[in-house]
Structure formats: C-alpha cells, structure tokens
C-alpha cells in the first residue's frame, strides 16, 4: 500500500503504483475543490493535517480494506495547504483482478477517510471562511 500526505497530488504516480500484471481493473477516485458550498461561492480551500496520526489512521483503514477485498494495489494520497478551485485534494486508488473489489474498496476507503482521519478543511468565501463540520 502507498499512503501519503503531500503538497501536490500526483495522479500519474498513483496510477503507476496501482498497476499490476494480475490486476484487471484499476479504480481512481479524485476529490477536487468545488466552487460552491451551502449556496455560497467558494474561492479556495486550505487543508491541515495532524500528519503522524493521519498516516496511522489511513493505514488502519487500508488494512481493513485489504482484509475485506482481494486487492492488488492500494493508494491513498491527501494534500495539505492552499488549494484552488478544480485542484485535486485527495486520490484513492485500488486495483484488483476483477473490478467489483476495486469499486467497493475504493468507495469504502474514501468514506472512512472522511470519518476518522485527522485532516481539516477551511472553506473560504468572498466575505468569510469556516472550518467545515466544526459546528452543528
């Protein structure tokens, strides 16, 4: 498995890490910066991570996925720092002999990452900014 917190997402690297002669399917999920949230125009996002713990949590999730599905390759990259509209901020990749396992594991990995991995996003609008999910 290849797990990292990076300044810039590298999709080519992720794809190379997933390639395997025994894999007949490769899934790549790319999360990007959207230009709106809750009806407001978003101007940029800033990501922050507690890096050692984030890596540890990502590894736990990856191990769970490997136990649940027969995966050939697994990639989790998350970016930190300032990101502009359209930029990739997270890439989750899986490869397996048959596509079902890759699709299911990829979905599981991004859903779990969003629940437990200590990474925070601040959304900037034209007039203010908020830490996403911080308040009810």
């Amino acid at each position, binding site marked *: 498995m290849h797990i990292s917190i990076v300044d810039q997402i590298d999709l080519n690297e992720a794809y190379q890490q997933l390639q395997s002669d025994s894999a007949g399917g490769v899934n790549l999920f790319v*999360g990007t910066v959207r230009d709106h949230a809750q009806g407001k125009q978003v101007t940029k996002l800033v*990501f*922050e*991570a*507690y890096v*050692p*713990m*984030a890596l*540890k949590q990502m590894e736990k999730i990856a191990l769970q996925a490997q136990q649940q599905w027969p995966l050939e390759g697994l990639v989790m990259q*998350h970016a930190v720092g300032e990101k502009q509209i359209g930029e990739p*901020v*997270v890439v989750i990749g899986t490869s397996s002999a048959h596509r079902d396992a890759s699709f299911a594991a990829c979905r599981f990995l*991004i859903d779990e*990452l*969003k*629940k*437990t*991995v*200590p*990474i*925070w*996003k*601040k959304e900037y609008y034209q007039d203010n900014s908020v*830490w*996403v*999910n*911080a*308040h*009810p």
Partner: protein
Amino acid sequence: MEILLFGITREIVGQNQLTVPTQDRPETVGKLKEWLAQQYPALQKLSSLAVAVDSEYADDAQPLPSGAEVALIPPVSGG
C-alpha cells in the same frame, strides 16, 4: 503538559500548542476535557471534540502519562 492543536481548536486557543500548568495537570482524558471546557468555553460549541494520545483516539477513561503526545481533534473534514 503540552497539547497539540489543529484547525478550529488552534484558532480558539490562539496558538499551535497549549500548556497545561503543572498544578492543573489532568490524570485522564476526561479530566483534560473538563479543564479545557472551563478555560475555553468556545470548545464546547464544537460538534465534537476528541483527544488523541500518541496518535490514537482516546476515550475519557484513558490516563495521560507524562511524555505522551496529546492532541485535540476537532471534527474532521478531509477529502
């Protein structure tokens, strides 16, 4: 005792790290949360506030040994 701060907790406290004075030193995660709530009422308005000890989520009963790396984990929002 030093507490690492991230995201909104860093903004609420106004610094990257928080020092708990020796005389107030909490013995457990739960006691630390009580101390924090008194010192920084704004923390109670968050949707949730977890504590990590040595990079693992810790429950309220968990002790805080000296030398442990302690961090506040406000609601996460990665991805």
